């Protein structure tokens, strides 16, 4: 363990499309998955991350480095996270939430989930279809039935009769 010599240990991570990345161990262990591998002594060579592609892993490592450089100040960490996610499109966010889940990084997971939820919040069905290019595959009868079933979520008031 290099911690004893005072020089920071560097880990090599490998994405599922065979890109290699070097990252400081102190930043990488934000991922519980990686931390467990390090603790189990599997960090000697290259750590393969089978569920993350190179593009996403590069992003995650940027985040790891950025957030671990900030001292224990939740306000500053939060504003870093907000800034980090502000320019990501939906596809990237979806990839990142999957990566954060696989890497077991709760802080990134929560932040990306909240960001995705923000995109979906207070949107009409029509907006959802346009935004995500979803084709309406309901028959009019089915759609009416599903609407009826969820009426209670759309109204401020639920009535058991039809007044």
């Amino acid at each position, binding site marked *: 363990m290099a911690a004893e010599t005072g020089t920071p240990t560097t880990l090599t991570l490998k994405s599922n499309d065979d890109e290699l990345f070097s990252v400081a161990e102190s930043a990488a262990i934000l991922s519980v998955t990686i931390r467990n591998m390090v603790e189990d002594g599997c960090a000697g060579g290259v750590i393969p991350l089978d569920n993350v592609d190179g593009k996403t892993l590069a992003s995650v490592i940027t985040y790891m480095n950025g957030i671990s450089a900030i001292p224990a100040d939740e306000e500053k960490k939060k504003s870093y996270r907000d800034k980090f996610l502000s320019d990501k499109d939906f*596809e990237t966010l*979806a990839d990142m939430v999957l990566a954060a889940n696989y890497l077991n990084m709760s802080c990134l*997971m929560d932040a990306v*989930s909240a960001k995705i939820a923000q995109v979906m919040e207070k*949107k*009409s069905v029509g907006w959802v279809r346009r935004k*995500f290019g979803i084709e309406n595959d309901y028959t009019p009868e089915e759609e009416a039935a599903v609407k009826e079933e969820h009426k209670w979520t*759309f109204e401020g008031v639920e009535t*058991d009769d039809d007044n």
Partner: protein
Amino acid sequence: MSSDLCGSSLLLSLPDEIFSVITSSVPPRDVCSLGLSCRGLNSVVSSDKAWLAQCDKLGLVPFSTLIEWRKGVSSYKALCRFLVNIQPLMGIWVHKNPEVGNVVYVMPGFLSVVGCRIVPQTIGPLGLEDGPLLWTSVFEIFCKYDGSTAFLLHGRERGEDYVYPGFLKSVDRNSNMLLLEVEPLHQLDGRNTSSEIPFSPLESDDGERLLDFTSQVRDIVPDAANMIFFPPIRNDEFFSQQDFAVLHKRRLLLLQIYPGSKPDRVGLSLRAVTMKLYSYVAWPDMHDIRFALYKLPTKTKWDKTFFYYRLWGSSNY
């Protein structure tokens, strides 16, 4: 933007557990907007995981209680529908002169919410820490299998316990007044005349007539079932699986008594409405002539010190 091209497959590719983390921070309406957009997404957003998260987020009952309650309903979505519906009822409701007993505390029961009237009593120097409060149940609103509601007014007369079936008519999201109303039903002959007689315009002695009226339609709780409907005092505080079995059984028995969505004899109904009220130091200005309960501003968030589960364990919580 590339996200415009990715389609529903991107959303569909998210595993259930991630989806429920994401949707847990939006209200049920937004979850349903996704489901209404296409069949594939509807099956994703209908997952029990997503709706368990929604139920939990409401903060009305602890997580472990949700798990137990799930056994009596078709899905967490159905349970969520019930919880969203009754949420505005939770808390303290008062009428004029609370010191003579006009305080009703609405709290979770078992797959239900219960209105408890606090019996006027002398409390020792330690206040609530001194011992249990005397209370009596006034009404209970059950969650049926599909998440709809069943309203039962509780009563006691000459030593007999009664339940009067009625229905929960509507609950405003920000309701501050609770009205008990009666309407004659003519549904059997096809006419549905809206000759509704709310309590509010009745003269005070009409209230007594109403009591006569309801006494004709009450259902006497059979003696054998009494122990189940109104369980006797318990001393221990924690529920065992056996207790839960009794509570599930009690609920099913009461739902059997319940006449369904169209009570055939009397339209006794509960309605929570929003009225413009004046208040002085948070105390609502109450009308003398209205027979209604008024909401006191209160926190409804689940509090661990709130031992709701003792409710059925004793008649003097």
